[in-house]
């Protein structure tokens, strides 16, 4: 049983996707608070916007690691989300700071429900990928011993 680079990547990706799961949960809670009038949209955007780029960077970081480890299948799973993230960031409202959310349009039902849906989909995606990485890590470890 050798601890290969691929296995290390999966281990790291597992931990990082756990982090991303927390990001997604925070995101969902934040938008739910907006929907139920608990929070001021300006404060909410100020707290959400700084998290957008770290999330993207973490995700891109372990995808690149997978690329180096030659795990093409896993890369293929992650590329669509990266593509969507890039598309989303390119089409963000005019802003001088990093981030995606504009307090003046965030309360539109369309934007709000889109952000909410995004949160749920990301949560599901990272949860599933968490277990996938766990499985793959074990698989890589087991297969490398033989």
């Amino acid at each position, binding site marked *: 049983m050798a601890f290969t680079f691929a296995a290390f990547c999966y281990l790291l990706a597992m931990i990082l996707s756990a982090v991303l799961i927390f990001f997604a949960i925070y995101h*969902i809670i934040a*938008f*739910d608070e*907006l*929907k*139920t*009038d*608990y*929070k*001021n*949209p*300006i404060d909410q955007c100020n707290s959400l916007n700084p998290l957008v780029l770290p999330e993207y960077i973490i995700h891109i970081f372990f995808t690149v690691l997978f690329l180096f480890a030659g795990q093409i299948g896993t890369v293929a799973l992650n590329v669509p989300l990266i593509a969507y993230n890039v598309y989303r960031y390119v089409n963000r*409202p*005019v*802003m*001088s700071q990093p981030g995606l959310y*504009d*307090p*003046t349009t965030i*309360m*539109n*039902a*369309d934007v709000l*429900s889109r952000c*909410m*849906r995004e949160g*749920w*989909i990301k949560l599901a995606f990272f949860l599933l990928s968490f277990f996938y990485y766990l499985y793959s890590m074990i698989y890589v470890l087991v297969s490398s011993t033989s």
Partner: protein
Amino acid sequence: MSGPPTGAMTGPPTGAMTGPPTGAMSGPPTGAPTGPPGPQTGAPTMGQFPGQPVGSPTMGPPTNMANLTSMSGPPTQDMQGRGGVGGGGLTGKRAYPQYPNQTPMSGPPLPGQMAGQPQPAGSQPGPTAGVPNDTYGQQRPQQIPNAQSYAQSPNQYENSLSGGMGKLNIQQGDTRPLNLLQNRHVLPSTPVEPPKPNLSPEYRKLVCNPDIFRTTLTSIPQTQQLLNKSKLPLGILIHPFKDLTHLPVIQSSVIVRCRSCRTYINPFVQFVDHRRWKCNLCYRINDLPDEFNFDPVTRTYGEPQRRPEIKSSTIEFIAPSEYMLRPPQPATYLFMFDVCFNAVESGYLSVACQVLLEELDKLPGDARTMIGFVTFDSTLHFYNLQEGLSRPSMMVVSDIDDIFLPCPNDLLVNLQESKELIQELLTQLPSMFSGNKETQSALGPALQSALKLMSPIGGRVTVFQSSLPSHGPGTLKSREDMSQRTNSKDIPNLGPATDFYKKMSLDCSAQQISVDLFLFANNYIDIASLSCVSKFSGGCVNYYPAFHTVRTPAEVERFENDFRRYLTRKIGFEAVMRIRCTKGLSIHTFHGNFFVRSTDLLSLPNINPDAGFAMQMSIEDSLNDSPLACFQAALLYTSSKGERRIRVHTLCLPVTNQLSEVYAGADTQGIVSLLSRMAVDRTLTATIVDARDALVNVCIDSLSAFKTTLSSGQAGVGLIGPNSLRLLPLYTLAMLKCTAFKLSSSVRLDERVFAMDMLKYHPMIYTMLMIHPTLYPVHELSDEGAISHDDQTIPQPPILSLSSEHLFKNGAYLMDRGDALYLYINREVSPNFIQSVFDVPDFQSIGEPMHELPELDNAVSDRLRNFIQYLEEKRPFHAPLHVIREDSRMRILFLRHLVEDRSESVMSYYEFLQHLQKEVGK
């Protein structure tokens, strides 16, 4: 996939920012309604409550007739016999004279109209000038039995309709399928009236004035599915702070509100018994305080139904101290003048200072009113006006990257105490900068200093700007590219270039500061970016392209009048508006100038009487709990006299599960007004081409959807549409051709963006005029059908379709497009007319440009001038008159509004209908 169950959150909102006034109970109703919703409270049942004033049957048609003729005057009698409270009357009489309500839904007038128009498809009205007048003459008498004055005397009318037959007529009248291809002349010759909601007579007379509050569909669909099926947008249009002449004002120790959803008690609640009432929005049963049985008019205890809250759907409360987060602020005004070279050259400064000087005493306010002045070019100039100084002292701050305020306590001063100094400053200002050669303009730093200066108090900042900000933070670059204008696929740069102004606006909004812009620019000034500063702080934007004191006197006149109105109009400070609606309905999108602070709360640092709002609604839960849906808008503001007040408007509409009833209640003008706002949003998120397609698609989809409701026998051939939507294709075409949405290289970017902002900001009546101007023939004005207004006889010419086929060679036409009036004189107009109106012998001698008609003492001139004056007075802002000769270069101003004609390769109305037919038939 949707969010987690939101209903689980029942705690009180943390609401630090919403505060007690309206924020206290903003969440969803915290519990299920107590108990099942009572027995089906159908409209007829409502009428049986004791004490509800029922229409007096003694008023017959003759009164109606009298009403028609004296409609525009003040109400001659108080029909309901109410004294009102605190000087108030009944439902606010409209500030503008009223038109006879031609009710398109009740049988007779419409067929009459149709019959009056040249019937066969495609045939043009004969060239005899008499035709329109004849038509007009025939129609008048037919309208009279149905005419009513909306706010004053609905009773007698409703009595005649309260039978089952009346309602039946409404339904049939408005969903009557109409072949739009054959009935091309759909525009009625009298102003288009909104449909009357299908309510019981008692409720109908209580319904909010449609000029203040209306919905796009007067029958609310029961479910979102039904709404989707109809393909029409559901939304509300509100003009909450409209100037009203009769407004009941109540000062009472207790303001009765629902304990769970905080709805204000309104005419549409049910009284379960003498001690309890049932909220019409969340259906909770609430206790009625004892004070509520006290009738302030007669000073006796009795029925709660006699309270003004129950008798009027528009009402104003003087709020007790629970509604204040801080002591009411004094009226505070800051004026910021751009004094760079461009500004000085255009000469606006002297005009503005002169008007301000004249109106200084009429600024709304009390003894506490504060005022301040700042001027800026590449540096900022502050003025110390503290009482006791011998003359105003100016301080120059040239470090614009880190703004500081010199003597911050003396820059905003009490208007009364420092009046002489202020007057002296205003007299000197124009000459002080007359030789200024500085071309840089530091608007960004100026706004930052305004924020610093005003943030302890809040108030209104008025900014005059005449060139692109080019110094310090907030610098903008010219984005208008002439070569791109020819590209008809898309028009770029409709959105802001930087978020500096948006952030500034949000910061201002948080400090209860609103920023209003007056823009004077010959060149590109990037309204798309600049207007953000007003958009989210509840301000307004005024734009005077090509303003020059010598070269464009009409613009100067318009600015003078607008500014005068701006200074003297009512103003509300530190305002919030909350829109509550019946459980199941929710607000989808907001349109207007404000910041949306939560799902139903708008933050409006200032509110002015010319601001309109629209909200698109969605139906989240089926509305089967009640046959009625209600909307309530509550505007909490501080008046200029330092009183905290709440203005409440309530609208009640029937709910339906029939698609045909949804179509019957469709309010075309409301729909078009909402669609135009949605299209503006679309241009920002997508492209202008997308927005145009979306507009046409609404037309196609709704007509196709209507077709599916018809049986095969009814459908027939041609383009079939419901009678209620007969104007939709026409208005849609007009929208495609209006400045905001037309794909033409002749529209400057600023002009277009400004037109879009105005579509979003103006109340519905003015947006409709912008989209579809009204055209009157004025060469044969007669007293027939005239109304009297302010002791003057105002002729009421018929409204013509906007098509050159209705323009006769010997005619003169007046076009009202909201912000301007065009008097178009055709070449062969009779010399008599020219002589009597212009006092010149022939067509060629009519001077140009002409913005005023000479006052001549003859009937023709009197009638025309009275009519123009009457139109002018109907709106709060000023619309300059332009006299345009047929052979003038200016005629394009007039001709481009003839939307039914083919223009710049855009379809004519008939072609557009054919296009729709092709698409619907697919």
